[in-house]
């Protein structure tokens, strides 16, 4: 249920962060207002978006703090000034033990060098999948895949195969004590002014099929070329494997585990729509 209580956010000098679940801190980069998507949303007749509001497709990074600490992704190169102060405030005197990259895509990995310079003892963690790590400066990183677990002391992260991905060097991550699945480029959606750094249970608007479609018809442009049933079969398998897990996407708002089940269904409708109607544009 939506709540009107203010989200427990803290404004740093230059950006935003909050605790989203115990031990999981969320650092968000809004990017600019997406006027083109806002127009498309209005034309679609959607009722979740209020004309005049800014519309964002965010980048999210997540800091996990057990006895040891792990940062998942780094925001885009435009937001080092958001990420680093937020990290410093969250970590205080503590070291950053791991920087784990979902994939070496610019809006996800854009501040890797800055983070490693600021925390020189930090272990870089990269997906084991793929063959061209040296072309991304990832040849010396610790490589992780579905067999691997990092025990952070109080939190335990695993690296399930990325089911929906844009390039070969890619992994998803799960945290097993809070039961959270980090879905990277999948399960994203736009949000508007007043909804930044809120979970889906803290906003008053619905995240329906159309809202998920605005994101995936652009980012997963290849839905237009698929056999929809192959994608829905993979989505259904995820819904079973991760039943009850909260979802923490890189380009949307986190979805509590208790609310997650219908989102898988909505994604199945999204892929059927994009396969029938084509891509929505470019992000």
């Amino acid at each position, binding site marked *: 249920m939506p709540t009107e209580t203010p989200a427990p956010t803290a404004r740093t000098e230059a950006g935003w962060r909050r605790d989203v679940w115990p031990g999981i801190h969320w650092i968000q980069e809004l*990017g600019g207002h997406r006027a083109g998507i806002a127009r498309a949303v209005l034309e679609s007749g959607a009722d979740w978006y209020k004309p005049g509001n800014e519309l964002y497709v965010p980048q999210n990074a997540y800091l996990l703090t057990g006895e040891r600490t792990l940062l998942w992704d780094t925001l885009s190169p435009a937001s080092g000034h958001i990420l680093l102060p937020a990290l410093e405030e969250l970590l205080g005197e503590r070291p950053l033990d791991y920087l784990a990259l979902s994939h070496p895509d610019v809006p996800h990995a854009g501040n890797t060098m800055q983070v490693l310079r600021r925390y020189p003892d930090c272990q870089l963690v990269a997906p084991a999948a793929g063959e061209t790590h040296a072309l991304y400066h990832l040849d010396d990183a610790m490589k992780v895949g579905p067999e691997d677990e990092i025990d952070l002391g109080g939190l335990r992260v695993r690296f399930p195969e990325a089911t929906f991905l844009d390039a070969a060097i890619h992994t998803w991550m799960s945290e097993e004590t809070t039961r959270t699945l980090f879905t990277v480029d999948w399960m994203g959606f736009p949000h508007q002014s007043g909804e930044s750094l809120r979970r889906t249970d803290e906003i008053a608007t619905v995240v329906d099929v159309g809202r998920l479609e605005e994101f995936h018809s652009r980012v997963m442009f290849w839905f237009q070329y698929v056999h929809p049933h192959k994608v829905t079969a993979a989505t259904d398998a995820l819904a079973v494997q991760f039943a009850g897990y909260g979802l923490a996407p890189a380009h949307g708002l986190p979805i509590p585990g208790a609310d997650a089940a219908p989102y898988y269904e909505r994604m199945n409708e999204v892929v059927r729509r994009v396969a029938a109607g084509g*891509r929505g544009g470019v992000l």
Partner: protein
Amino acid sequence: MWRRADAGASCERARSPERGRTVSVIDLGGGVSWVHESFPETNGHIHVSVYLVDAPEGAILMDSGSFHHRQRLADRIHDATAGRGIGAIILSHSDYPHSGNIPAFRRDWGDFEIIASCGDPDLQGLPYARRTKIGDVTEVLGRRFVVLDPPLADRNHTTWVYDEASRTLFVADGFGALHAPGACDVDWGRLPEEGRAEGVHEFHAQTLPWLRYADPNRVMGALHAMLERHPPAWIAPIHGPPIAEADVDRYMADLSDALTRIAASCGSSE
């Protein structure tokens, strides 16, 4: 027009530092040349190349290559442009092996224009880029390019471009193929037939993970429609050798087989 390796230059020779500056770029005709680089993988070499296009107002570089090959690319571009360097880069997408040399090349040759497609250049680390979008016809240094929606790509903001003057179709991560060590500088039709189709399959299986969900007919249909609208004298991929007009049908047949195999490896298509 060039069709085969010049004097049997091999990757190994091209890689040796003392030969680095002597390996020339390979002329495809129409003012387009291939500046090839390769990277070794388990099952073969993958090209991570760039192309130079002669335009009335300067040299255009198609993508910037990988930082891994920076110095040798810079030397060869320097030689090929008689020291003038490049006047613009048309960037297919911001993936690092395509975009990684932009800052260094701008230091070498000044703040030349970057033409790139993406919703938000800042997020892609290209605040200075001129944005193009699919469907545009854009002029770069006095030469016209048609900006196309790529059926084969990894990042959603990828674009392909068609150079009308030379009828070269620049296809970024599309139309790739692995090649055997030593065959780094021959066009696709001149690769040894043995293993050539497998190189097309290997490339797609590892590089475009979404193909496991694809309907091969839909992908091939989109490609055929594009080739009909923009008939290429050359197809110019970053991760494979250029494909001459006479070889396009054979490549498409191998690609269709590869997509069918990849699709079959993931569930039924019924």
